[in-house]
């Protein structure tokens, strides 16, 4: 039977708060001595990376790997070696871990690589400025980093996809800060990263906008460490005073003098233990400082390394890996000596029950009202317990208590059982992920799965994801990529056949596995990409055939030089942006002739691509469009393009020339006779307009007007003869001409001219338009004259419109139209007219 949980507890603050030291693994000196190494640990029970600290001296004759080259070793928390690689680039400035357990290594030239646990990496750079000035230090947090350049400015990188570094506000430092820290954006108030710099006596807070002096006086500080929730800050002064303040520096929470601890050597690390206590480590001593400056001391046999966890602190010593944390509330309430909480009594009752003691019934009875919460308490406590033995006991107690409840939702109980099974599996030393329950719920199950796959533990990952009914896609994808990298083309056959066989086999293996395990949504393109990167082109093509998402297929097809296929897939996807992507890529990489041929040969299938190319070229590259139409004998399009260009030209001569060229294009197409004729007219008109402009003088513009407008302009400028000539030349129908002239003459108030025009011959449009137009323009007086020439039945209304009510009445009287008169009577403006109408009405019978 493992030790009772309370065996690892120690009390602080007069035994009201307990901390426990849970031993996670025994290491048996599997790890090198931390004192000689630079170490970075990954949160959530993740691995640690170590690099030899070249500033420290070590004995020469020890059997250690070569020191000439930098080498980074990665170990799991259980001391298993995960990865070892050497660094051949410029000096490493810093390395650290991302949220998804990848190792970021930054060198002094501003180049950083992001390694996964298999040793594959992506390389990015902090930009030119950083590489010129050099990087002197950096802080790496889970989703980005902040680097200090040689000129003491701050650069921030968000995410690990090689995003462009942003420059933060310049704190105007004269020398590197004594110490500094970064509060990650997800836990600051502003949601943007905050940098804390210890300068002289004070601390500067820097974000993207400004740099604020917090006006402290205790500095300089040797350690600055923000708590996991970003709310408080631990500061250690040179004199050894540990200060705890809120991150906005408004409140001071605690102060502790570290010199009161009798320890040898210097303080190594200041780390948080959860959010309420601070660990200060010396060479072989770890001191836990509580919120009220109480301390607990833990002794180790050698150098240690502490990693802050959200719910505690992980201490890795030479022999053991421990988790120190505040005892979680449910466990405390059950196991605290003398506890009388319902959960404790329930647990006690169950123990009595299993010993067949009568006390069980009595205990249950006494907590009857709180039984449900007692059951919940036991379940929660089980989650926080490390030893499966105690987990089982607590769950049994919960199950026992549940039996006395009428309605109880068992979901929590079932979930906890499942979760503990998973957690216990990954805590096994060969897996080496000492994940606590709260860390697990914080990081989500899928995060755990991806951590397992990145360790190539596909079977376990798959079993866990099936067990938790998660989709197996992620695991399968990773597995397939790993499979491709591991499998080599078989050498049994001869030449290419053998390779094909090998490809076929691997592809079939992968596809079958996916079908079998229901990974229908796995992106084959990504796997194909891995295959292609590994030089397995055949395999890549085969895998790509299984991909359904065009947006994933296309880029790979392009890099594989499958141009036509890429274009077809892009068109098929309906995603015009994808089509553009392919078109622009091809335009860049192919000769113009080949490019056009590819599109034209595609026929109906590639027609959308061809049209998109035209849309693009019309805006951006007209020369190319002209060539494109020309090479494809598209006369009409060429002509339209020419017309479009003509409309943008200001120089008359070149405009006429361009319209002429359009005319030529049309005339080359036998079906476009009409259009050719029209363009011919257009050219004639433009030439005529040029002449008119010289005749009429500077101020009048004719050029570019339509035939109608030209006639109008002529009349407005008194060039009546010219107007008549245009009418004849362009065969303008009478009706249209009369309207234009009517409007134009009215506009210049040439009523005499209008009269003459009206009398020149019988109007082809009648005289009603004259009346109406004049009325509309407010010349009612002039309009009246034309009413008499209109159709008799309409005259009464027209008179009314001219506000000649008397005439209207007279007209009605003459025509004997009583109905019309009555209608007008209703509309008449004043009583005088009305009376008159009444009179007329009375005379009519």
């Amino acid at each position, binding site marked *: 039977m493992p030790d009772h949980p309370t065996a690892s507890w120690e009390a602080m603050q007069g035994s009201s708060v307990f901390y426990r030291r849970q031993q996670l693994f025994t290491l048996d000196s599997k790890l090198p001595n931390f004192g000689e190494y630079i170490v970075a640990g990954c949160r959530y029970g993740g691995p640690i990376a170590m690099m030899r600290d070249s500033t420290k001296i070590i004995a020469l004759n020890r059997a250690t790997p070569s020191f000439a080259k930098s080498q980074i070793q990665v170990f799991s928390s259980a001391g298993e070696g995960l990865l070892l690689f050497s660094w051949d680039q410029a000096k490493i400035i810093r390395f650290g871990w991302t949220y998804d357990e990848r190792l970021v290594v930054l060198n002094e030239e501003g180049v950083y690589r992001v390694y996964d646990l298999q040793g594959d990496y992506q390389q990015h750079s902090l930009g030119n400025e950083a590489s010129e000035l050099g990087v002197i230090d950096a802080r790496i947090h889970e989703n980005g980093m902040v680097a200090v350049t040689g000129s003491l400015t701050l650069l921030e990188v968000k995410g690990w996809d090689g995003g462009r570094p942003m420059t933060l506000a310049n704190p105007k430092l004269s020398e590197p800060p004594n110490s500094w820290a970064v509060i990650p954006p997800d836990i600051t108030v502003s949601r943007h990263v905050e940098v804390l710099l210890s300068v002289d006596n004070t601390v500067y807070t820097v974000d993207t906008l400004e740099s604020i002096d917090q006006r402290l006086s205790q500095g300089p500080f040797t350690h600055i460490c923000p708590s996991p929730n970003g709310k408080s800050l631990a500061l250690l002064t040179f004199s050894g005073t540990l200060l705890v303040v809120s991150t906005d520096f408004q409140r001071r929470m605690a102060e502790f003098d570290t010199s009161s601890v009798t320890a040898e050597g210097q303080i190594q690390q200041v780390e948080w233990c959860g959010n309420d206590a601070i660990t200060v480590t010396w060479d072989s001593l770890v001191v836990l400082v509580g919120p009220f400056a109480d301390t607990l001391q833990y002794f180790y046999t050698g150098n240690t390394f502490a990693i802050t966890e959200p719910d505690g602190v992980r201490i890795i010593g030479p022999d053991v890996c421990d988790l120190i944390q505040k005892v979680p509330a449910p466990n405390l309430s059950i196991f605290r000596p003398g506890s009388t909480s319902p959960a404790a009594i329930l647990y006690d009752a169950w123990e009595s029950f299993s010993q067949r003691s009568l006390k069980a019934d009595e205990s249950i009875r006494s907590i009857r009202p709180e039984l449900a919460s007692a059951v919940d308490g036991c379940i929660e406590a089980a989650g926080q317990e490390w030893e499966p033995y105690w987990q089982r006991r607590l769950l049994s107690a919960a199950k026992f208590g549940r039996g006395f409840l009428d309605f109880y939702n068992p979901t929590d109980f079932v979930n906890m059982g499942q979760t503990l099974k998973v957690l216990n599996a990954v805590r096994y030393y060969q897996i080496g992920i000492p994940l606590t329950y709260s860390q697990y719920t914080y990081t989500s199950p899928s995060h755990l799965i991806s951590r397992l796959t990145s360790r190539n533990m596909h079977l376990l990952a798959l079993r866990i994801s099936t067990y938790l009914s998660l989709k197996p896609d992620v695991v399968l994808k990773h597995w397939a990529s790993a499979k491709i990298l591991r499998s080599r083309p078989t050498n049994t056959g001869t030449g290419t056949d053998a390779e094909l066989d090998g490809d076929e086999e691997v592809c079939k293996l992968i596809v079958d596995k996916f079908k079998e395990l229901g990974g229908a949504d796995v992106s084959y393109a990504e796997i194909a990409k891995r295959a292609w990167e590994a030089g397995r082109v055949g395999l890549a093509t085969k895998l790509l055939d299984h991909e359904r998402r065009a947006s994933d297929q296309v880029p790979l097809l392009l890099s594989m030089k499958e141009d036509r296929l890429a274009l077809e897939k892009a068109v098929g996807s309906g995603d015009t942006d994808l089509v553009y992507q392919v078109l622009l890529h091809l335009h860049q990489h192919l000769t113009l002739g080949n490019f056009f041929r590819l599109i034209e040969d595609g026929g109906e299938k590639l*027609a959308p691509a061809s049209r998109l190319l*035209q849309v693009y070229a019309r805006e951006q590259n007209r020369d190319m469009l002209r060539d494109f139409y020309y090479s494809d004998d598209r006369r009409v399009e060429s002509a339209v393009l020419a017309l479009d260009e003509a409309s943008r030209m200001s120089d008359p001569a070149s405009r006429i020339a361009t319209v002429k060229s359009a005319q030529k294009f049309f005339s080359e197409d036998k079906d476009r006779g009409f259009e050719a004729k029209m363009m011919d007219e257009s050219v004639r008109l433009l030439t005529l307009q040029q002449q008119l402009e010289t005749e009429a003088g500077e101020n009048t513009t004719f050029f570019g007007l339509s035939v109608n407008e030209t006639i109008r302009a002529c009349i407005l400028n008194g060039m009546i003869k010219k107007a008549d000539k245009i009418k004849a030349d362009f065969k303008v129908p009478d009706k249209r001409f009369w309207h234009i002239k009517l409007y134009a003459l009215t506009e210049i108030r040439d009523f005499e001219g209008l009269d003459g025009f009206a009398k020149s011959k019988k109007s082809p449009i009648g005289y009603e338009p004259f009346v109406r137009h004049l009325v509309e323009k407010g010349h009612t007086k002039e309009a009246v004259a034309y009413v008499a020439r209109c159709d008799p039945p309409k005259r009464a209304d027209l008179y009314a419109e001219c506000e000649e009510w008397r005439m209207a009445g007279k007209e009605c009287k003459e025509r004997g139209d009583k109905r019309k008169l009555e209608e007008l009577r209703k509309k008449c403006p004043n009583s005088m007219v009305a009376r008159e109408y009444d009179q007329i009405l009375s005379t009519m019978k």
Partner: protein
Amino acid sequence: MSTEDQTKPQDNDPPLDINLLKEIARKSLIDALNSVNGAKTLVLDPTIAGPLGLVTEVSLLKHHGVDKMFWLEPGPLTSSTTNIVYLCRPMIKYVKIIADHIKRHAKESSKHNYTLFLVPRLSSLVSKLLEEEGVLGDVTISAYNLQFIPIAEDVVSLECESAFKEIWVDGDETIVYDSAQALISLQRLFGLFPRILAKGDHAARLVKLLTTYLPQARTSSAPDTLSEISDEFDSLIVIDRRVDMITPLLTQLTYEGLVDELIGIKNCHVELPASLVTPPSGPAPSTSNAPPPPPPPPTSVANLRKESKKKYHLTDQLFMDLRDLNFSSVGKRLNQIARRLDEDYKTSLQAKTIPQLRDFVGKLGGLQSEHQALRLHTGLSELLIPMTRTEQFNKSLEIQQNLLASYNVPEQVAAIEDLISTGTDMQIIVRLLCLASLTAGGIKIKALENIKREILQAYGYNLLPLLLSLASPSLAVLLPNPLPPSTPQAVQALKYPFPSLSKSLRLLIDDSPEALEEVENDISFVYSGYAPISIRLVQCVAQKGGVLSNPAEKEKSQLSNGSDRGKFQAHPIVGWKGFEDILATIPGETLDIVQRGAEGATSSIRNLTRPREKSTTTVVFFLGGCTYTEIAALRWVGRQNRVGRRFLIATTGIITGTSLVDSIAGTRKTTQGDAGI
């Protein structure tokens, strides 16, 4: 129109909450702005400003750090803040302007952080162009996914004005893809459409994208609505504009439609003389004495142009009441409301006791705003009346009616020619001409060439590309008859069978006075006697009885039979059933797809075919835009079902025939400068 028609469907289920879409759009805008720290200068694409004004307001932007706002226009940009945020559609001309700004700033060595938000998604074209300009490294590019915007309680729109032109003239199908994405977002909110119906080649393309993309969009392991059949929706009907080109060419005759035709509605805003919009100083309630609105001198059109204008957001309650009425009955309704308002005011005189008085004072605010709305709409309809009295307006209406009735087509063509000679707007002429070609299956080649020549002479030879586009195979709305032998097969297949459709879909309702009743009891009231084909097609799916005869008629007979069932229970969606033959005669693909969720698909199919107690929503998506009259007609169809079915109208944008012609001709006036916010 009887008042009964106005009553809302009387079921108690709350309608689909489309304001959710607005909230999402607003939220993501704020997130986008907040991703840039500190004060920023916002540079806006003018075409986005209007739609954006529907989801947010300036104060909100200011609240999130926007210091100054500028239009994205050529020319220098001076900014006092380090952060410059561009918000625009991924268009080449905008990219050039942005690149120009950045280069200028570099020359002046003023340092800025540039962020570019592309609407609705990232574009590789833009990054490529920025790269070519050599400024890609200076710009952070991300996307602002502005999709459907609610523009009325039952209408959502992408507010993309040029959708029609892009699809059918340029052949740029970006909007089809974006629409599919927007519909997927809609499904993500409310669940899968159980059944999807489509008519038209591009509609079919959209539906194929929608159905093939779904499995791909469904990637996250978390359960989401994309794997479940919706219980809110019963179907999606996609109709592309090419299927019914006739309807937008006609003059809209509902109140809202007419306002759009004659004054223009842009993003739900109409520009009105300032005197109409601002309430008169010191509104005296007692002056609302005259039930027939007092006749002030009607503001003439010319006047309207000069007067300072003000934007008015058409959202008042009175407008909701009026918008779908045929314009001829608007006056009557205004009159009624004026009377009622008068009565309400008079109750104040009868109020004797203190509680009565308090009661009245409580209502006073509502009355006053109603009074103000009444004033505005009376003024607005007085603006419209002179415009509807012009010779050209009436002549064009007459030609439309004759063409729809296929009455003496050559004479109508001659009448169009007469209209040209009187100097009528080019857009109206082109609309009529296309209408003639569509209804008569083409225009005699001689007459056509003649009239084309007239158009070119009267309005300028630069319209030749417009005429070519209209005749191009993709659009084919202006064709000679008979077609020349060299015409591609595709064009011949596009020939529109209007005369047969007119009968089989009962498009024309006699306009004689005796039939007036009937006109008001059918969707054809929106065009005074013509039922829009697009809506008839929707009826083919969602109200089969309405296509064949008047539902309202039946209702009457039912009432006389003593049955008090009231309006119908909407019948379940069974696809195009019964109308397959008619649909086959209309050019364009016809689709009918049943979508299955991830699991339990069979049960949901069963749900579909039995009548439900709960109302469901039928989404009608118009690819290429729809008119206000079509919306009005669909609302009318929706009102006929007391229980069972509501419509949610989704569209790429609101169009009129004039806006279509303008977009094809490229003559759209670029005066959107002061649009929206």
